[in-house]
């Protein structure tokens, strides 16, 4: 078919068939507050007026009481590892060198944990109850995104008592 030229490329054997979706996303008003807090280098949550629990990030309502969470609360930069996973498996699109630790972190003052990357600790030394702090990007790099938090790292404190986080596993 292409014998006219000697440097012709070989036969076609593969076809790129990407499936893509472009969409506009809005996180809503409550999570926008959380994201804008990240842009200022702090964790913002909301408290339920009925049960008093503090959610971070807040969805704007309390899932237990079904009422809007209207009180904004600034959380600590320090929290507790409630549980974790050491990731050893490579996968497509992986952006972090393995092995790494993916931890659920309960910030001081919060009643909801969220997932964070844990670094500056060997993977065999991670444990439940470990006290950690957020490491932020440089101030001029802060954006309304969780990418503003580079990772969490251990702080020099005794581990939290299991009783303090057993409700959040």
């Amino acid at each position, binding site marked *: *078919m*292409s014998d006219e030229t000697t440097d*012709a*490329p070989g*036969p*076609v*054997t*593969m*076809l*790129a*068939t*990407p*499936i*893509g*979706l*472009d*969409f*506009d*996303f*809005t*996180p*809503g*008003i409550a*999570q*926008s*507050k959380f*994201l*804008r807090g990240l842009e200022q280098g702090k964790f913002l949550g909301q408290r339920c007026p009925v049960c008093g629990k503090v959610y971070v990030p807040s969805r704007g309502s309390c899932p237990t009481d079904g009422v809007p969470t209207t009180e904004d609360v600034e959380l600590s930069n320090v929290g507790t590892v409630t549980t974790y996973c050491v990731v050893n498996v490579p996968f497509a699109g992986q952006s972090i060198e393995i092995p790494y630790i993916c931890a659920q972190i309960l910030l001081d003052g919060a009643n909801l944990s969220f997932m964070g990357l844990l670094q500056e600790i060997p993977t065999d030394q991670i444990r439940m109850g470990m006290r950690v702090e957020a490491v932020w990007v440089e101030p001029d790099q802060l954006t*309304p995104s969780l990418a503003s938090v580079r990772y969490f790292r251990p702080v020099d404190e005794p581990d939290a008592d299991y009783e303090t986080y057993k409700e959040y596993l």
Partner: protein
Amino acid sequence: MPESEALHAEHHLEYPYSRSVGPVIGAFLTGLRDGKLFGVTGAGGTVIVPPTEYDPTTGDDTGEMVEVGPGGVVESWAWVSHPLRKHPLQTPFAWALIRLDGADTAMLHVVDAGGPDKLATGDRVTVKYRPASERIGAMADIEAFVPEGGAGA
């Protein structure tokens, strides 16, 4: 609360699949890259375009690749007045079933006719390839079919 309090972002989610095309469709796509259209012979000497590995009526292996086109006949068509972002043309066009010269089956592609009043079933059209430097071995190597003897849109 005013909606402006809520953030807004554009997201793009994509699965970058690729697939192997096999010897028959591979030969067809290689032909497109080289600026040629190929079909394959099936049962009773019919010519199937785009080519398949098996004859759709008998299930037997298909035979030799044969060159078809570059002209053909519009068997059926539907006008797209408002092309979507991912459509092959960004100006109004027709999706059309085109039976290429030498073929017994019709192939789906687009006709850049200029307007729905300038296209009719039975019209002759001819292939318009992208420049050779842009062709990669894909259906989009054909930019469009255009009315035979006309300039197109």
